[in-house]
């Protein structure tokens, strides 16, 4: 009896240790971004030069984005509680303004996006999940009293990587699928097919997701017919 208690305690202790190790060791990639941030019609502009220190790591310097640059840096971190120190610099590297903030990461979040202008203005969503779940539906869409019908068989490629195949709802098909994408700017490649998988029609569109949005819904018939409102926030 005594041996049994000791053993089960030991096993329990090891499991607790494993969970603890998982939590403190889990990698969270944090993208620090010095880029324009828009929320509720308000626009926060990026700074010329900022220095960002995450926890006690090496500081990173970010310039104002130019051309294709997104003004970003990638920092790998572990643990759930972080603090960030932002220093706005002038041309001679003098600190004009600085601010320190704290934030938490949920354990199951792989990537975070941290927007500096938003942080400096305390705007909602300055730190957000960088992974967005995109729900794609092949269902009837109604707009301006007109209804666009779903297609027999559709192949959708999210950002040239994740491929989804969706049939018309009914016969056990839900007419819906989802995929996870990272970042804010995305492309969507759609192929309308017949039952022999021959492509009848294809289309490519690009779209942008807001910082704070985590789940989005795309309606295929609406996209194919260029109807506004094909991209909405997803509600369970």
């Amino acid at each position, binding site marked *: 009896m005594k041996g049994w208690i000791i053993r089960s305690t030991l096993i329990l202790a090891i499991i607790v240790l494993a969970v603890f190790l998982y939590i403190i060791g889990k990698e969270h990639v944090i993208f620090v971004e010095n880029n324009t941030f828009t929320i509720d019609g308000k626009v926060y502009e990026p700074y010329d030069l900022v220095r960002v220190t995450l926890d006690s790591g090496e500081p990173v310097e970010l310039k104002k984005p130019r051309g294709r640059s997104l003004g970003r840096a990638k920092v790998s971190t572990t643990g759930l509680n972080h603090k960030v120190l932002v220093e706005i610099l002038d041309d001679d590297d003098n600190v004009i303004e600085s601010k320190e903030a704290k934030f938490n990461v949920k354990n199951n979040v792989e990537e975070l996006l941290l927007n500096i202008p938003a942080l400096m203005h305390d705007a909602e969503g300055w730190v957000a999940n960088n992974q967005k779940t995109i729900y794609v539906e092949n269902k009837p869409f109604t707009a301006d009293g007109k209804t666009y019908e779903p297609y027999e068989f559709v192949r959708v490629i999210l950002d*040239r*990587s994740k*491929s989804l195949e969706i049939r018309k709802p009914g016969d056990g098909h839900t007419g819906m699928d989802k995929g996870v994408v990272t970042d804010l700017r995305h492309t969507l490649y759609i192929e309308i097919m017949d039952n022999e998988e021959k492509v009848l029609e294809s289309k490519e569109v690009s779209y942008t997701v807001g910082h704070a949005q985590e789940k989005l819904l795309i309606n295929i018939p609406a996209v194919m017919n260029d109807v506004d409102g094909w991209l909405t926030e997803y509600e369970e």
Partner: protein
Amino acid sequence: MKKVFILSLLVVFSVAVFAAAPFHIGVVTGTVSQSEDDLRGAEQLIKEYGSVEDGGYIQHVTYPDNFMQEVDTTIAQIVGLADDPLMKAIVVNQAVPGTVAAFRRVREMRPDILLLGHPHEDPNMVIDTFDLAIYPDNVARGYLIILAAKRLGADKFMHISFPRHMGYELLSRRRDIMREACNDLGLEFIDMGSPDPTSDIGIAGAQQFILEKVPAWLEQYGPNTAFFCTNDAHTEPLLKRIAELGGYFIEADLPSPTMGYPGALGVTFTEDEKGNWPAIVEKVQEAVIEKGGANRMGTWAFSLGFTATAGLGEHAKRVIEGESEITDFDDVMEAFMKYTPGAGWNGSLYVDADGIEHDNFILIYQDTYVFNPYTEGGFMGMTQVEVPEKYFYID
């Protein structure tokens, strides 16, 4: 008198100093028993630029024959090159497992050394560590080999491989592309498993399997079956049987006229044919035609292994001397053309699963050469064919 002596001593010294190469290039290849052509490429470089022992540019070392197990030795050999303060570039052909680990250590020790190679390890790791990687374009070849088979008259296509190779992203992807291409071009695709030459039964056991099974396969699937295998050890017996009994062999996994053919068909070479690719192709062609393999068997006219070692070495030298840009596709091809006069090359940049194009990972391929009895040679013109876009999206 004394002055003259000192002066002459100075002259002697200065000659010695100036005669020595200003920098060194490390070249790492397999031995002849693993990959002959790779090593011959290194010998070509030594012939041109001299070995470090003789004051030249090239420091050649080899990795172990059973490199899959002796990763440690591969790492030590590569890192050992970086111990030389004059070392400015390291070319590894083929960059077998352990190269990435070694390159990371070289980077830590000597960030100035250029790192080039033909990688075996996962593209994700290679992109982050290599300055330049070249790889046969298995995406395009997945389609083009099937197309060539169809043009030659095959109606079935057999892909022979084993689990360990199917753990390689680019090999596994090529198989799926081949399957899709067979579907589209109307060939039947047969996925065949075979013993792994590095497993318990060894190379001989794996080869014996091929020797025994090809006749059975030809009987079951008919003489219009094209065969393709992912492993070099399987190539030799496969060629022997196809030449004897029928079937098609478009090109090897790492094509070269010296890949499999000389051993399989007992081709004899004289001393004066050595080192001359066109003469070797002709000699192999004679043997293939004699066995009745005309219009059924092919290769690349210039060895990939040879060209990769020599071409990457040449490119590295040009980059260090400021003549070329490390990741400039045209510059790379120019260095390659030096060793393959008149060959048709084509290629693209590797695009990863996230759709990001990497300019330090170049995929290349040469035109397929089919042995035939006509003197004009059998280039298939595969480099002119445009590969349909959809194959690039197949995972």
